């Protein structure tokens, strides 16, 4: 009794942390957060496509989450962004009502939806009437479900009759898309994540998986074949430090290196005749790479002949499974398409394709970049079709009950071309959906000037505070991930669902519902009569894919997707019933196992081109080369969401920092944590010095998440993919305190 008085081992404060069985396979959970039921959703950040288990209360409202065990992608794990996926929904700067800028005061004022929709429609109609269908454009995203992407693309082009629209996937995936399309005849990343676990040699190039895709690094760690992990990267990334070998080449020395590898492999006759039989262009390629001896490229790559020869042997070892994986280090380059194709070529000539543990594999960035590639109706016609192909247009027109003449035959301008047209005054009105180009676009300083040239800017976003929303004339409040349903497609082509588990704040509506309103108000509502909800839209889109490489006509419903643990495309109707009901673990499928490609003659094309010169190399005035990339696993892109989680904020630097080599720092008498100004020809920013030999001498690294960074980057683009070259420009350091 007395002891009890002296020691309070229980009470209200202790009770807050008491746990009880969470049921639903969860193990113990805090008692006050014990779920009444659970559901699943694919994470809304990156393209890994982890499935999360949402813990719901009596009202179906999410109160907590944990990663879904047994899902074939993430196997019960998630990175911090996934774990904190619910946090950004509660942010105080969520949009709760449409906002319209008052021309008199320049201030944004709340208006109701009726007003907002009518303003949108009347403005765009008048722009169209006065300046034609080329005078407006939308810029969208890889972050919304594919049903919404398709709705937007179809509403814009077939419903409203405009032509130009592109997505921020241009900033992340366009290069891989173009490379695959040209080489394989279809944009088809051939792999499944199981390949990480089945490789003998894993080459990661321009990819910092440990930080950018932690769950994919997990898959590598599960590989029991004791693989060689080779990282090719100018920077000693976290991944490079964890690899078995780091090949620290000179920035943009990659294309020459891959040609040199092909040179050695062809010279040593280590090619795979069986695989070569399914290709065309090998003779020209063999001739072309004759010049690229290891000695010849040593200067350009900064690598010794021995290193190159050894690497060539490692990636062409007969009987060994070699897989190549790349992300933005390859894609965001002025010659990214050819570099990606140089990797594809290496796989084709060594037979490392279509078999377990192999492949030229592009790991995607955004959660639904892959959905965008098939369904956004921007670069390609919805459902994996071609705008220029009359048969395709007819198929889509009849499939969606759209008049044939409402489907344009010509293609849209790309992101950078849309912005240039806006600068030139040709595009008068811009509609930005769920992306933040005023932060993320290369040389972002240009955007502010461009804004002045626009008659009307609409931004549709979860937050009214993004750099882009702040400057909009009309802001439309959108519901976000967790407040809507639909499908994402992940990097390995796996289609899976997301669910509404939270109420959107105020009058925020899902993008799908906003599109319905706009269709109705524009007067093309009848075209979308069947688009009552995302699943209804999905079933129509599914039907469109029939007989395309991405045929998913075998998918029955959202429920089917959930039960199967997601389904990889292709999944045609006539797939055997065995496969249809396959248990999730067996449902890992890769492409091109039969050596048939999607080109007219069924052969993969070997494409190549002489390496180009870096658009803005360092010089006397700007002696450092600036690299950019992901900072930490807890930051996402422009941070509109990750900056809203108190937990994530603890895990990354709150101010921009710049990595600099210790010897460069010593020469310039720079100390750790010193404030520096980094300047390029286009702008400047301040950053704290982080001195470490992670970068080579003469190079600097800035994480892309801080809005200032893209004031510096150089607006050069890949010729074929129009993807911006974010990762190499010349800068100088100004030392200030």
């Amino acid at each position, binding site marked *: 009794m007395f002891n009890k008085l002296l020691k309070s*081992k229980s009470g209200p404060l202790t009770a807050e942390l008491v746990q009880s069985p969470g049921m639903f396979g969860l193990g113990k959970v805090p008692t006050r957060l014990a779920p009444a039921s659970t*559901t699943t959703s694919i994470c809304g950040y990156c393209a890994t496509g982890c499935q999360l288990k949402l813990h719901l209360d009596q009202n179906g409202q999410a109160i907590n989450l944990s990663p879904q065990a047994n899902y074939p992608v993430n196997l019960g794990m998630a990175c911090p962004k996934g774990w904190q996926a619910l946090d950004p929904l509660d942010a105080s700067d969520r949009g709760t009502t449409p906002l319209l800028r008052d021309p008199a005061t320049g201030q944004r004022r709340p208006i109701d939806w009726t007003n907002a929709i009518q303003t949108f429609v009347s403005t765009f109609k008048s722009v169209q009437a006065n300046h034609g269908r080329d005078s407006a454009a939308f810029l969208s995203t890889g972050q919304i479900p594919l049903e919404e992407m398709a709705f937007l693309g179809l509403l814009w082009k077939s419903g409203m009759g405009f032509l130009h629209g592109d997505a921020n996937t241009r900033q992340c995936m366009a290069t891989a898309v173009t490379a695959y399309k040209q080489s394989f005849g279809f944009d088809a990343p051939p792999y499944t994540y199981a390949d990480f676990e089945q490789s003998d040699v894993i080459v990661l190039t321009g990819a910092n998986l440990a930080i950018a895709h932690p769950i994919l690094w997990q898959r590598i760690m599960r590989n029991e074949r004791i693989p060689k992990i080779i990282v090719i990267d100018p920077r000693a990334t976290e991944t490079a430090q964890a690899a078995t070998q780091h090949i620290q080449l000179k920035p943009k020395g990659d294309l020459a290196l891959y040609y040199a590898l092909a040179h050695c492999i062809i010279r040593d006759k280590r090619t795979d005749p069986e695989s070569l039989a399914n290709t065309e262009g090998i003779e020209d390629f063999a001739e072309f790479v004759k010049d690229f001896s290891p000695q010849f490229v040593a200067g350009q790559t900064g690598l010794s002949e021995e290193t190159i020869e050894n690497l060539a042997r490692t990636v062409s070892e007969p009987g060994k499974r070699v897989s190549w994986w790349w992300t933005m280090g390859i894609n965001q380059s002025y010659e990214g398409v050819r570099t990606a194709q140089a990797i594809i070529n290496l796989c084709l000539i060594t037979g490392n394709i279509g078999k377990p543990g192999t492949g030229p594999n592009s790991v995607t960035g955004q959660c639904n970049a892959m959905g965008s590639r098939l369904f956004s109706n921007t670069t390609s016609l919805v459902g994996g079709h071609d705008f220029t192909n009359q048969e395709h247009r007819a198929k889509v027109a009849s499939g969606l009950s759209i008049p044939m003449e409402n489907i344009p035959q010509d293609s849209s301008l790309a992101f950078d071309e849309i912005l240039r047209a806006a600068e030139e005054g040709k595009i008068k009105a811009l509609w930005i959906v769920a992306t933040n180009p005023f932060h993320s676009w290369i040389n972002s300083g240009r955007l502010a000037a461009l804004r002045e040239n626009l008659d009307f800017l609409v931004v549709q976003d979860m937050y009214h505070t993004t750099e882009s929303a702040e400057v909009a004339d009309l802001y439309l409040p959108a519901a976000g991930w967790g407040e809507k349903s639909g499908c994402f497609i992940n990097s390995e082509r796996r289609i899976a669902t997301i669910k509404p588990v939270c109420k959107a704040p105020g009058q925020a509506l899902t993008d799908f519902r906003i599109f319905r309103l706009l269709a109705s108000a524009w007067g093309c509502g009848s075209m979308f009569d069947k688009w009552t909800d995302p699943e209804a839209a999905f079933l129509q889109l599914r039907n469109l894919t029939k007989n395309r490489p991405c045929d998913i006509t075998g998918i029955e419903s959202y429920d089917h997707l959930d039960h199967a643990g997601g389904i990889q495309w292709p999944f045609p109707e006539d797939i055997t019933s065995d496969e249809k009901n396959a248990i999730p673990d067996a449902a890992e499928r890769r492409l091109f196992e039969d050596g048939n490609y999607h080109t007219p003659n069924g052969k993969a094309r070997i494409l190549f081109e002489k390496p180009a010169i870096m658009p803005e190399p360092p010089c006397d005035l700007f002696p450092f080369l600036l690299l950019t990339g992901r900072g930490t696993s807890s930051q996402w892109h422009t941070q509109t969401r990750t900056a809203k989680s108190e937990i994530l904020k603890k895990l990354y630097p709150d101010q921009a920092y710049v990595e600099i080599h210790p010897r460069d720092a010593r020469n310039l008498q720079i100390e750790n944590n010193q404030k520096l100004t980094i300047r390029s020809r286009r702008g400047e920013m301040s950053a704290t010095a982080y001195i470490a030999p992670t970068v080579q001498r003469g190079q600097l690294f800035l994480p892309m998440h801080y809005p200032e960074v893209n004031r510096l980057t150089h607006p050069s683009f890949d010729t074929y993919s129009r993807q911006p070259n974010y990762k190499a420009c010349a800068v100088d350091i100004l030392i200030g305190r």
Partner: protein
Amino acid sequence: MVTTLQPSPEKEAKSSPNPGLRTLIDDLLDEQSTLQTPVARFAEDHDREPDLAGHYRNLIPLTKPGEGEQYAFEVALDRCTGCKACVSACHNLNGLDDDEAWRDTGTLIGGDDAPAWQQTVTTACHHCESPECMHGCPVGAYEKDEETGIVRHLDDQCIGCSYCILKCSYDVPKFSKSRGIVRKCDMCQQRLAEGEAPACVQACPTEAIRIIKVPSNIPGIPERRRKANPTNLFQPERHNPQSGIPHDSVTFPTTRYVGRETPQTAFAADRDKLIPEHAHWPLVLMLVLTQAGIGLLGSSVFAPDSFTQTILGTLLFNAGMVAAVFHLGQPLKAWRFFLGLRTSWLSREILAFSLFAPIPIILCALPLLPDFPYKEFFTLITRISVLPLGFAAVFTSIMIYADTHRSLWSVRRSAPRFFGTVISLLLLGLSIHSPMLRPFAALAIAAKTLPEFIVMRRSQIQGDWSALRHSGRLLLGPLLRITLWRFGLAALSMLLVLFSPWLALPVLIASEILERQLFFQSVHAPKMPGNFGVSSPH
């Protein structure tokens, strides 16, 4: 199997054939605000074993610790790639506050040599063999579980004095403002008791964190600790004082860091970041005012006609005592302070000040009381007791800080400051009635600034990092303005005391308050390596 929701109500919400825009808007807003009714699927087996049990079965011991053993975290540094999921999982699965997690990560940087060496260090409570948090707690709100060795915090026992935060070399206990108490990692003991893995262990994608059993024999500090072990971050023989990693010889943390050798040149990524520590204002006021009060009371003892000083000293002292209460998150529970007397200097301080507290009151009351037998003798005894008891009480204050093992707060460095305050005020008080003592008062004020100058000088010397150098750089960096005010006011009070000690008094006290603020804010608090550029306050 995967759980799904019922079919979407959107399907049922077919809008009428020709809806006006407004009707459609209303319909859609209505839809948007409806969440599906969750229905647990019939197929969902509620009572099944946790889905991840197979994953973590090998990551926790099969049996409970035996005699002479305890649970400990083991971190495989070579498996950790810095994804930080452990932090998130700790937050989510323990249902913590928005910004609260009991696990944290930091980075070690290998130094200037290529190839680049960086290491993420994930850290939670080390469930030390000799937990200083527990020893410092005045009310026994910590327990080291006899069976598991887990250091538990009793949330309902805690008075929120935050002394454990100062005592822990690893920055583990965290103050919860809304609750007025401290909370910390308990190794998910509720999970471990049922054979489930702690949140962080469950969540690590690369299985870098596990629970192991380690020998726990505190007495005698066994040999094994003295053996150099290149993978143990805390090993004294490997310990590089410049690394910013705390030394293990105080608490004997049980966490084992294995799998990758840490180079001698490695240092904490946040080592050079100059962030002032918490000011602890109630403690600043408590220390300065009680010490000033004791000094003034002491001076009144020597000057029979100094009733004003007695009153003023009493007021100051008691104001300090009241301020102390504001430092407690749960003051009503503080009556249990005696529970910690055996190990906690905070308990001893509370006792010492409680014993001293009546003396000033008695001193004030005595001249007003009617005569009683032995009144003069009683008065004399009381007066004589002021300084010895006062110094004894101040000594317990010094020991509170010295016992945190922080460089700036060692007895050598804090005794001159704390006793110095008493002596300055004592001399100032005396010089009211004895003008010839005024230069001595000024001298005392000047002498008292010496320890601070010594620390500041450290920052000017080029060379290796040290905790004191860090303090010096704080004083001359982010805290410079306060430092200047502190010395400016000290100089002013020296000048004033020569002419009018009464005028000098408030100036001196203000100067001392700033001195004490700097005492708290410029200290280097040992902690596990943090992240570069994250300005999380302590």
